[in-house]
């Protein structure tokens, strides 16, 4: 009994801020109307966020599935070097890489661009995603692939018809991590986007704390918090199993 009272008290402590924020935002429905009209309109920011997250998830899945297959099943010159270079992304501070990226994306014509931001997110996701996908492809019995090759499939058909199906759980995990990271990130869009109409939700909602004429609308702010948090909370509760797999895989250690 003492066990359950302890964990219940702790659970209340951890859940309270979320419940409070939901309640504070709903106390006045006007909060949501104010937020909808804030700046360029919350619709614009939400659309930007959805676009960036979709491009990041799609990009991460495509690049890491192809790459994971290459690293699990092929030998090619420079293989180890490329794998180490990808893992090295984890060693480099965020700021160290974002400042030159701000300049570099300018050279590429991708400054202030949602596509440019998404590509940067794909890069940040790659160490985890590639590691996950490589292990997933390695776990498939070679016979499965060989049978397909003997049946006259090219490697790409074997890959897209059979192997991709077998690594579906890993794809869900990689996609979920890519979504949560790109939907929630604040620092990269803060640096790489400079036009209000291209802001993603975190940057836009944080700008609410600057207030209009010095007065901060705290109710509207919590409505913004809810719009950002709810999709993540729902997705997490549904896909929890797949999220935990990301921890179990040892990929965090990569």
């Amino acid at each position: 009994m003492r066990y359950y009272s302890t964990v219940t008290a702790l659970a209340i402590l951890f859940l309270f801020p979320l419940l409070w924020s939901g309640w504070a935002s709903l106390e006045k429905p006007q909060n949501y109307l104010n937020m909808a009209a804030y700046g360029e309109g919350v619709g614009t920011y939400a659309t930007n966020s959805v676009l960036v997250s979709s491009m990041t998830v799609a990009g991460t899945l495509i690049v890491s599935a192809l790459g994971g297959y290459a690293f699990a099943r092929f030998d090619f010159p420079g293989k180890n070097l490329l794998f180490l270079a990808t893992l090295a992304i984890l060693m480099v501070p965020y700021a160290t890489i974002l400042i030159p990226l701000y300049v570099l994306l300018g050279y590429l014509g991708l400054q202030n661009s949602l596509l440019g931001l998404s590509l940067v997110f794909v890069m940040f996701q790659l160490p985890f995603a590639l590691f996950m996908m490589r292990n997933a492809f390695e776990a498939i019995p070679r016979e499965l692939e060989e049978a397909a090759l003997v049946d006259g499939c090219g490697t790409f058909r074997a890959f897209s018809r059979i192997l991709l199906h077998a690594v579906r759980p890993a794809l869900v995990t990689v996609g979920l991590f890519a979504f949560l990271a790109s939907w929630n990130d604040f620092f990269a869009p803060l640096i790489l986007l400079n036009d209000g109409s291209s802001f993603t939700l975190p940057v836009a909602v944080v700008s609410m704390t600057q207030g209009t004429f010095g007065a901060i609308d705290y109710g509207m702010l919590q409505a913004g918090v809810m719009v950002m948090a709810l999709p993540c909370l729902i997705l997490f509760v549904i896909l929890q199993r797949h999220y935990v797999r990301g921890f179990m895989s040892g990929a965090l250690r990569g």
Partner: protein
Amino acid sequence: MTLTLGKPKRRAAHTVPSARWRGRQAQGWLYAAPTAVIVGVLFLAPLVLVVWMSLNRWPLLGQAVFNAPDNYTKIPNNPLFFDAVLFTLKYTAITTVLLSTVALGLALLVQERRPGVAFFRTAFFLPGAVGFAAAALLFYGMLNNDFGPIGPLLQNLGITKEPVKWIGTPNMALFSTIALVLWRFAGFNMLILLTGLQSIPVEVYEAARSDGANRWQIFTKITLPLLRPTLALMLILSVTGSLLAFDQFFIFTNGGPDNSTTSIVMVVYRDAFFRFDLGGAAALSVVLLIALVGLNTLLMRRLR
């Protein structure tokens, strides 16, 4: 953070004819090409560029001029930088100790299968699903005494007489930020530790119990030593994350009061985008990179 590079690579015995073998090599490169392009263009190229930028006077707008090593020699004159380094180290030490203690406590509480334990795990982790920016804004409202419930609650219960200045004094701002970080990251670290706890074989515990070990002995003699690699991973993640802290201070305390909660990365950001000195910011970033890689290498050697 290359603690382990995964499984040792397997090399198949190459009995394949060489022409077909070269075909497979080319195919391998084709599948790896998107990875190579992303890593090359968006990671390796910026890494080279940041070093080159640090050797130039590089204004936000306008022409870059080679001026090495000015961006490095002027770092000691940056008034904010040293205070920021001291503050960030202090923050890192406190956060890492508290975070690992709380995470270990939570993990031990929910490691065994019991009815309802899945719910408690989810409850502890749920704040981790919320973005850090959203979490910081949530606390920004919750700890506002006119809007949030915490200040009035403490006063009504008679715990404090005056309204608490949550982010009004340097110490309180640090305290409130750490509360935010604990709330947001304790569950995340708990999950890391749980993976380690669950990899300890049940037989080891059973053997210890039949030898008459008590719970404290089991914890210090079995759990902690066998958990060491996982604890090391968590410590390195926590130290790295804290040294690079930005969001919590930028959003929640805005570096204040009086720059007392200005972290290293905030100084880099201000140099680049408020003082328009990208060269100076690049030099700071390079120093930060070298320090961090050095520290991580050291920690990995020590902790493993």
